[in-house]
Each structure stands twice: as structure tokens, then as C-alpha cells.
């Protein structure tokens, strides 16, 4: 395929700078003067033209860059239920009430007003909320008010609103006397909501996603390559067995991953089961792993335990076929479509999914890969062992009395990272999980220290520590 390489106009000396800007764009949808940090906007705007061209060519994304905002509008291939940090405030994921409120609040900003007080906002927003059965807004219910506050904070974080007077806290305490005044940035509001098709024209959430062209269409091949690149750039790991056959084939081409590595500055890791872009700095992600927080730490230790377990038993543990991305997607799509309010759909303009979308692909072409299964009961034993070895206190006060809660949290975290996968009765261990087997040293060092009181550092551990510090 005659195609220019990623970042081809960028001088070698500037490449690191360019890749850094690309990573910012990929991890932060809306970059403003304050978000994610001061100075990032300038850094990205310097390369806006090149990034825009590269992303359009390689991924079919479009980048909207103005002097005040940079917004990446993606072409989505799959629904993704694991993006917990996008709609969350202070690390707490929004519940459905908050999500619905967010839509309603954003929809209630009138174009003729440049500012709005919280009292007025509530007056225009409450009828819309009350029109939805079961949702409602009652100013005397504190949870409803807290939800509104979280939503407004979310908008403030993204620069869609700017607090000019008063405070949300005072309103939360006393909605009669407390109030807050916000400036509305209509440009930012318009940038936040960028659906691929208007939701009212849809009879299925599939309409929000990229529709692959038919296999006989001439753009089919380029499309598979773009889908492969998107998978590689967006997801932690791309397993050949989980991807569609044409995408898996595109993933096997070595130059594709090299190109993406050149674009993002990440490191290609190619194995028999798949390919991934590893992130040495731990910054090109919304869920850093390994990380310092207790869930990430417990997840790592759990991986080590599981790796031990698998090594002990060899590969004799009965496996299960790896589910494909398409199967995941179909399940999620069905659930999302279950909530579709049919009365709101403008049927004259309605878009309906083509039948091929729902077809999960022919199994004959797919290579069957089995992933080892670890039962729930075994996992519980493992976390209990960890609590015993490290002491419950080392898992912070929030979790010290709730090992199984932490287990669930850690498993969900690992599932988000595509290292484990929930199945009924336990989890499947996905191949990339094994790259973290070295965490085992943490366990061994701990147990050896418990037995020997002498302070003899294990040279192997020592070396790793140094390496860890250096990397």
C-alpha cells in the first residue's frame, strides 16, 4: 500500500515532542488551556496540523483544533463499557442518574444566554428531568442535588462552565439561600457532544459506531487496516484470536504496529497470541498499571499469585475459548438497545443497523485459542493469602476488612486492562497477563523475609529494584 509513514514531516529531533502531543490527544478528548494541565494546549497546538493529518490518514479520526480547545473526534468500532474515567468525578464513576442529568443540563443551556445561575438552571432542567419516568429531580432529595453538583463539576473541569460567583457547596447545603453563577462556554458545550449520528435518528446504538464497508467494497482492505490500527492504539492488547479475521490479518503485518509506535512513541510488543503497544512512562492510559493505588497493587499481586498457580499446575488447568471483541460488543449493544425510548425516535429519518453488523463472523476462519480458567473460590483463597502475607493494614483502611470487595475491584480492573476476563464462576487468564509474572518476586521476597530475620538482600531482587528505579 503506497502510504506515507506516520509523523513523516517531523524532524527526528522533534519526534519525542510530537509523540508526546499525540499521546495527550489520545488520552484527553478535550484539551483546554487548563486541561489536563496548563501548557499542554500549546504543546499540542504546535503539532495540530501534523497530528490532524496523521490521525485522519491512519485512524480516520478528525481533530478539531482551535486556539482554545483541541478535541479528538474518534471513529468508534465497538461499544466500550470499561471507560470508567470519562464520565466520572473525583474517581467516582457516574451512575445512570448522573449521566442522564449531564445530558439534560447540557441540553438546557440556551444559546441566547452567556451565563446562568444555578437556580435558573434548576428551574429549566427540573421539568425535563421530571418528564422522564423514574428519573425526576426533587430539590429536597440530597442525592439528587449531589448528582447535579457532580455533573456541574464535570462540566467545569472541561471548561464548558466557569464559576464566576457563589459556590456549589453553599447551594448543596441550602438551596434557598446558596447559589452559584456560571459563564457558559457555548463553543466547548458544542464540542463535548459529538455523536456520529443524531441519537434521535437511531433505532440501535450501533448507529453511533463506524459501519464497516462490505467485504467486496474497494475500501474494505484499507478499512481493516484502520480498524486494526484503532484497536492497537486504543486498547491495551490486541489478541489475534479476539479480533475479526481481516483485522487480525492486518495486525500481523509488522509495519502496521511499527507505524503506530512511531506515531505514539510507545513500544511494540509482539507475541504469538497478539500484539500490543506498551507504555514505558505509564502516561498514555486512563488506568495506569502498574500503579500506586491499592487496587492496582492488589491486582498486580493477584496476577503474580495466578501466575504461580498456573506454573504449578502447568497448562493443565482446563481452558475455555477466548471470547471475541465482537461477541462482547454484541452483548453490550443488546443491553444498550434495551433502554432505547422508541417514542422519541424520529422514525422518518431513522437509521437502522445493517444485518451484517450483528453477525459475529464465521467461526471456521477464527483460530480457537483457549485461555486457562481460574475459579472464583480459588481467587478468594488467593486474596486471603495475600492479606495474610502482607498484613491487612497494608491494603489501606478502606479495604482492610473487605478482602473480597478488593478482589472484585481488582478483577474488574484487570478485566478493563484485557488481562483477565470475567466468565460465570471465575475468570479466564488472557495471555498478556503473563508479562507481569515477575511481580512474583514481591511475594517470594516477602515470605523469605518472614522466615529469616537476617537482612540479606536477594541479589536478584536488588537488581530488579535498581532497574525498577531506573526505568
Amino acid at each position: 500500500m503506497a502510504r506515507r509513514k506516520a509523523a513523516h514531516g517531523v524532524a527526528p529531533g522533534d519526534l519525542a515532542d510530537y509523540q508526546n502531543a499525540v499521546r495527550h490527544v489520545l488520552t484527553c478528548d478535550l484539551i483546554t488551556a487548563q486541561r489536563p494541565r496548563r501548557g499542554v494546549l500549546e504543546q499540542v497546538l504546535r503539532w495540530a496540523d501534523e497530528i490532524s493529518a496523521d490521525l485522519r490518514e491512519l485512524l480516520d479520526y478528525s481533530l478539531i483544533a482551535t486556539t482554545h480547545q483541541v478535541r479528538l473526534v474518534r471513529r468508534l468500532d465497538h461499544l466500550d463499557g470499561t471507560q470508567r474515567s470519562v464520565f466520572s468525578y473525583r474517581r467516582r464513576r457516574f451512575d445512570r442518574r448522573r449521566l442522564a442529568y449531564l445530558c439534560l443540563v447540557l441540553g438546557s443551556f440556551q444559546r441566547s444566554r452567556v451565563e446562568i445561575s444555578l437556580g435558573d438552571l434548576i428551574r429549566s432542567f427540573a421539568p425535563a428531568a421530571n418528564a422522564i419516568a423514574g428519573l425526576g429531580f426533587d430539590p429536597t432529595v440530597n442525592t439528587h442535588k449531589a448528582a447535579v453538583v457532580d455533573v456541574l463539576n464535570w462540566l467545569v473541569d472541561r471548561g464548558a462552565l466557569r464559576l464566576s460567583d457563589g459556590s456549589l457547596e453553599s447551594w448543596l447545603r441550602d438551596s434557598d439561600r446558596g447559589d452559584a453563577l456560571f459563564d457558559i462556554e457555548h463553543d466547548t458545550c458544542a464540542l463535548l457532544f459529538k455523536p456520529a449520528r443524531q441519537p434521535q435518528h437511531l433505532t440501535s446504538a450501533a448507529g453511533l459506531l463506524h459501519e464497516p464497508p462490505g467485504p467486496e467494497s474497494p475500501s474494505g482492505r484499507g478499512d481493516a487496516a484502520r480498524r486494526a490500527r484503532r484497536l492497537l492504539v486504543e486498547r491495551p492488547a490486541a489478541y489475534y484470536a479476539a479480533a475479526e479475521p481481516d483485522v487480525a490479518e492486518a495486525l500481523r503485518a509488522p509495519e502496521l504496529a511499527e507505524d503506530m509506535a512511531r506515531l505514539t512513541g510507545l513500544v511494540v510488543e509482539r507475541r504469538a497470541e497478539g500484539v500490543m503497544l506498551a507504555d514505558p512512562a505509564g502516561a498514555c492510559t486512563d488506568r495506569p498499571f502498574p500503579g500506586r493505588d491499592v487496587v492496582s497493587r492488589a491486582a498486580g499481586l493477584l496476577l503474580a499469585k495466578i501466575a504461580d498457580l498456573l506454573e504449578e499446575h502447568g497448562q493443565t488447568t482446563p481452558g475455555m475459548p477466548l471470547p471475541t471483541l465482537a461477541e462482547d460488543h454484541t452483548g453490550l449493544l443488546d443491553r444498550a438497545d434495551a433502554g432505547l425510548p422508541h417514542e422519541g425516535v424520529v422514525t422518518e429519518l431513522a437509521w437502522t443497523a445493517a444485518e451484517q453488523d450483528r453477525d459475529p463472523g464465521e467461526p471456521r476462519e477464527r483460530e480457537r485459542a483457549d485461555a486457562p480458567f481460574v475459579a472464583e473460590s480459588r481467587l478468594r483463597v488467593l486474596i486471603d493469602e495475600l492479606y495474610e502475607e502482607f498484613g491487612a493494614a497494608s491494603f489501606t483502611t478502606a479495604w482492610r476488612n473487605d478482602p473480597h470487595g478488593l478482589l472484585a475491584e481488582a478483577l474488574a480492573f484487570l478485566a478493563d486492562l484485557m488481562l483477565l476476563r470475567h466468565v460465570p464462576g471465575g475468570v479466564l487468564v488472557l495471555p498478556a497477563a503473563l508479562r507481569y509474572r515477575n511481580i512474583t518476586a514481591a511475594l517470594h521476597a516477602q515470605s523469605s523475609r518472614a522466615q529469616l530475620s537476617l537482612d540479606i538482600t536477594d541479589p536478584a531482587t536488588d537488581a530488579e529494584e535498581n532497574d525498577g528505579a531506573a526505568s
Partner: protein
Amino acid sequence: MAERRALELDPLAVGDRFLLFNFTRRDDHVVYLWVLRAVDRLREVHQVQVDAEQVAGALDELSREYADVPELDGGLRDRLDRLHDDGVLLRFDDPSRAGSLVRYRNRQSVYQFSELGYWAYVSVEGVLAARVQDANLSRLVFSDILEDLRGLTAANRAGDGEQIYRRLTRLDSVLEDMGRRSARFHVTLGEIMQTTETSPEVFLQHKNALLTHMTEFTAELDRYLPRLSEAVQEVEATGLATLLDRAARADDRPFIDHEGRLEEWRRRWAVLRAWFTRDDDGPSRADELRSATRVAVSAVIALLRQITEFQRGGVNHASQLRHLAHWVWDAPDEDAAHALMGAAFNLRSARHLGVAHDDAEDISPRASWWDAPGVEVSVPLFRSGRQPTPGVPAPLRGNRGAQHELRKRQAAARADERRAAGDLAEDGIHGRVLDETQTRVLLKLMTKALEGRTVVAGRLTGGVGSDDALLIRLVPADVGSTVRTAHGTLHLPGLRVEVNPRTGRRKP
């Protein structure tokens, strides 16, 4: 002008006049309205004084034309009487001859509109009949005004009092009309701008006509304003006092005396003048109108842009979001809701696994993750939850005593070494037992010398090590040397050690 006189009414009189509208607040106000319409219909055919029967007949006639006319179940006389109480109608006894006692006693009252009552009725009808579409700016009147002003100049020069009166009256009414129209236009426009939030269709339908109308008006105003201003000055140049006096004389209103008329014409002229000429205290009213129209044009354009931007999707942005809110709320679980929101807003983040292999090329891409080595992770992180970072700098502690002690010890150690080196330089290293300090100095220098050796033609050359007092040279030799120390004997096979005092440097 009528509005100006109204400002002088005292509150009591205002209250009396408001009573005229009382019928609009009564329970069956629609019936009263139709009664008044019937009376007005009779007035049109010059039946000024009417009795209840005639009103009933007129109502009948109206009900044949309009479906909405309410049925009157008697009580018409009561209603007429109540209208009389409000002051809308006047009541007289029937002045016609009865002729007999019975008829005289049954004589009925007749009713006619009072002057103010008629105005009240007309204004109520005016409000009812008002339509938004009527609003306009009177663009075409400027040429009339100019012509009238020029006519006024000519008439004053010719001393034609009646002509002056006619021109002035016309100017007065035209200006009043223009002021009212422009005020009304801007009120209507403001209303449209506010209400398009819900239904922008009306606005979009007429946007072009509206913009053309306003821009043409401003252009016309721009064109005529200097000429009008000039014409006003010309009129004044012909003698304003004479002009107004002539107009007052030609004014034949019987109820006002000459002084009163003169005063009123003076006021009217001041108003006219204020329209077109710039005073010291501010711009003329035409200027104000022009700037108001300009502001309105830009507001209309801004509104238009906003509407079209928000309507790009066909369905309103807000209704999309409301629909989505409904959808998300009805989603069966949080994951599905988030997946839906993320896709609808098109918001997500890339996600990647941390830690990469330093030597990525060494591992075969065909190896399985099961067989390939794991990545080097920082184990302390998992052991304690702390990243092995240098951390923040520790606070500086001024521990003078300890520093002093350490410095003293260091100085003593250095002095010892220097003395030992001096001993070595003086007495050599062979043939005696070296004490601990001397051994340490020797070993240090030998380490330097050994590291400093180079290989020349496959053979090691000698090495040199020195400090500030001593220089040792390692010379390759067939017979090795031996140094005896307090801790034992040091054998140096294949090397001879030569010790020399360091020259060329001052001994401290």
C-alpha cells in the same frame, strides 16, 4: 401630544379612567365586549342613542355573522347599566314624547358611548386586533417629511397661515406615527428573539425580509437625515415665532384659547426639531432610532447564526440530549449506560499497559506470552505500595556538632595517611612490616596503578599511581615482590613496586 398630557394626570383621574376598563375584568367579560360591539355597530349607522331592544337586535345581527356571539338570557339592561356605572356608556332617559301615562312610566333609558368610554372600547379592540405581522419601520415617510418641511418654508415665506397649519399638522401626525411604529417594531422584534427558543420557524421564515427591511430603513435614514436636518434649519430661518403664531391662528379648535394653542404648537415644533437635529445634550431621535436599528440588525444576525448552528442536525440539539438522557436512564446496567454515553458523546481515552521490555528485540515475536520473559517491574511498588523514587528532598538539618566531629575525624584520617605516605616515601616498602595506615595508602595507590596499566603489543606495561605525596610505579618483573604488612604478607607476582616521593609539589 396626547401622551405628554397623560403624564400630567393626577392619580385620582388615572384611577377614574382605569375604571373604564372594568368590564374586561368582569366574570362574563366576553358578553360585555359583544354588547359594546353591538353598540358600536349601531353608532356606525349613526344611531348614537340606543335602547336595550336595539342593542339586542344588533346582537342578533352579529350572531348571524359570527359564531362566537354569546346567547343573552335577558339581563341585557343590567349589563348596560353596569357599563354605565363604569363610565363607558352614558344613560339618558328617552327624550321622545310618550303621549300616555302608561308609556311615560314604562319609558326606558337609552344609552350612548361616553367620549372616554369609546376610547376605552377602541383601545381594547386595538389590543385584541393587534398582530405581530403588522410591525414595520416606516421607511417611505422620509420623503414626505422632507416635502412637508420644504412646503412649510415656502408657506411661511408667503405668509399662508392655513398652509402652515396643514403642513404642521401632517408633520405632527407623521412623526407621531413613525415614533409609535418604530417603538412597536423593536418591541415585536425583541419578543421574537426571546420566543424563538421554542419555535424558531417563524423567525427563520421571515429572516430575509426582516433583515432587508431593517437595512433598507437604516440606509434610507442615513440618506435623508442630513437633508431633513437642513430643512428644519431652513424653516427656522424663515422666522419660527411668526410661523408658530400663524399656525396657532389658523388652528380652529374652539375649546382652547390662542395662548394655549401657541404653547402647544411650540411644544410640537420642539418635538419635531428633536427628531432631526442634534442638540448639545445628545443625539437626535432619528440618530437613536438608527443606532437601535443597527443593534437590532446585528442581534438578528447573531440569532440567525445560533439557530442555524444548533439546527444543523435537523433535530434540535437539546431534544437530542433529552432523548439520550431518557435512553441512558433506561439502560439496564451501568456498563451499558457508560458505553452508550461514551459512544454518543464520542468521548474515550486510549488505554495501554505499563512497563516495556528494555531489550524488546531479544525476544522472538513468535514466542508466546507464556514462554517469553516477563517485564521488569519495580517490586517495591508491589511490596509496599511505594514507588522507588528519590522522593522529595529531606529537610536540611543543621547538625553542627556532628559535622564538626566528622570533619575532625576526616582531617585526622587524612593527616594519618599523609604521614604514612611520607614514611613510605622515606623508608620504602620493602624490608619492614607496614602498619595499617601505610598498608591502606599502598593498596589505594596500587589499585590506581593497576587500573592505569595499558596493554602494548600484547604485553602489560607498567602502571603508575600517585597521590599528593607519593608515587608508586609497578614495573613488570620476572621475580615478583612481597610486601609484609601488619595483617599478613602481600605477594605481587610478576611485579616490582617502586616507591618515590612525589616531586614538583610542595609538601603541605
